[in-house]
């Protein structure tokens, strides 16, 4: 997700001037981009010391927290947009965090690696777990403890009463709106509480 074009694709979904919470904000690149180009304000949440430092150096507000502990610090609907980019798949409490995202933000935007992208399907068909650019790890060392697909997320969103406002895939820095579950390595969903 650190890819420049991916960041711009996500940034275009955030309304200008929005108050944004970026869960798993990394080095704060997206928040800095949103502040500079879309007059957004807000905070990042990070667990890693090096990312907390990088955000501080960049002048991005960052709160050091373990997302597995939830978002008790943040009030209901206190942000225009809550981002959870390339983060969800690392969390044990995936569903809880999704609900927390919808609680704290008027709008949630998530992105995650789409396990159903066709090269992954081919690899699984040969009897092996996929190792690709988007999923560069072996099964035994992957930090992606919750692998799902574009189509799986639609099912989860329905189950949790989330209304999908927009959804697409990203492949090579381009939005994929045709057969995203097959054609895109990254899935993106924008939603609100139903």
């Amino acid at each position, binding site marked *: 997700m650190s890819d420049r074009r991916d960041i711009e694709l996500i940034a275009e979904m955030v309304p200008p001037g929005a108050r944004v919470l970026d869960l798993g904000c990394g080095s704060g690149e997206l928040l800095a981009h949103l502040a500079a180009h879309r007059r957004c304000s807000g905070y990042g949440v990070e667990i890693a*010391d090096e990312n907390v430092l990088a955000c501080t*150096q960049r*002048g991005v507000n960052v*709160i050091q*927290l373990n997302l597995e502990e939830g978002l008790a*610090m943040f009030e209901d609907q206190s942000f225009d947009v809550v981002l959870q980019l390339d983060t969800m798949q690392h969390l044990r409490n995936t569903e809880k965090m999704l609900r927390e995202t919808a609680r704290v933000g008027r709008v949630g935007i998530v992105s995650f690696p789409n396990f159903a992208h066709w090269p992954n399907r081919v690899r699984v068909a040969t009897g092996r777990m996929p190792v690709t650019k988007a999923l560069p790890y072996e099964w035994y060392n992957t930090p992606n403890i919750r692998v799902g697909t574009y189509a799986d997320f639609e099912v989860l969103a329905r189950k949790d009463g989330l209304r999908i406002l927009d959804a697409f895939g990203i492949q090579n820095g381009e939005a994929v709106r045709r057969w995203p579950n097959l054609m895109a390595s990254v899935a993106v969903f924008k939603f609100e509480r139903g």
Partner: protein
Amino acid sequence: MGSVGQVTPQAMQFAEPLPLKSGAQLRDYALVYETYGTLNADKSNAVLVCHALNASHHVAGTYAGEAKSEGWWDNLVGPGKPLDTERFFVIGVNNPGSCFGSTGPMSINPATGQAWGADFPVVTVEDWVDAQARLMDRLGIVQLAAVLGGSLGGMQALSWSLRYPQRLRQCIAVATAPNLSAQNIAFNEVARRAIVTDPEFHGGHFYAHGVLPRRGLRVARMIGHITYLSDDAMERKFGRGIRNGDFGYSTQEVEFEIESYLRHQGDKFSEYFDANTYLLITRALDYFDPAREHGGDLTRAFAAASCRFQVVSFTTDWRFSPARSREIVKALLDNRRDVSYAEIAAPHGHDAFLLDDPRYHGVLKACFDRLAVEVGT
């Protein structure tokens, strides 16, 4: 990275009475302070460093002819250090009620011609901040680049943001809390009782008797020291180490290394610290509670703040735990203030705020680098 070198404290006399939170007034008082670095032309590069319980205005540098006289935050403040004295004008102030030169219980009460002793008025964090603000007035500093403090010093930094919101760009509050828990007040009370029940305390007027309540101070300091260290840090440093190789089967002699350490710390402390000051400062800690005037609602209390905040806590600090720092952060988030929060996984307990963990100092350096750009220094 260097030292600010040899430094000399200065004193400023104030004739106008300082109204205290208790309703009393402090008349004709002096504040002792030190400064490092150079105030720039538009006086925008000043950073105030607030001290905690047993420290003073001597933040950095050394005193001529005194070995081991480094200031208490010398690892943070100096040329090329995170708070870089080549870019910032750093001020350390000894708070009134202390025993390091500013007017306190050891000073002469003009009304009696005797030492104040126990009659020194009870001072609060807010009173200290007001006194510091008056010193800034005298130095011609309208807005500080930052107010920085750890522990009780962090409370002063927070109080600055509430009492003088326009007078600081950034508040940096380290290892602190929005108020003391019952457990924390309990530790303070044990320390105070140890002092007050020392037969040589004489109701706080021991100066007149030519004695010092050393035993009480020693015990007070021992209690404090236990709470500044984490269980792990104490275990690593002392474990069950025995002083003389084997048990001596004595109930009163030092047997374990930890006993020896605590007694040594207590002895050292009782030689230089004033008992009345210890009572006053622990009380200031107990009283600090900015939410109290807002029905206990910290979010409402922080509505008054407008500066940027950096909050830092340490995972093994059980005296001022991360949960307490998160309360501060939450109140700031609720008010949509600019705030960053670093929770440093350091093993040393509360004492970590005085140590030079690179992650911790890295975050502070990033704050000051940004401020340096903003104030053009």
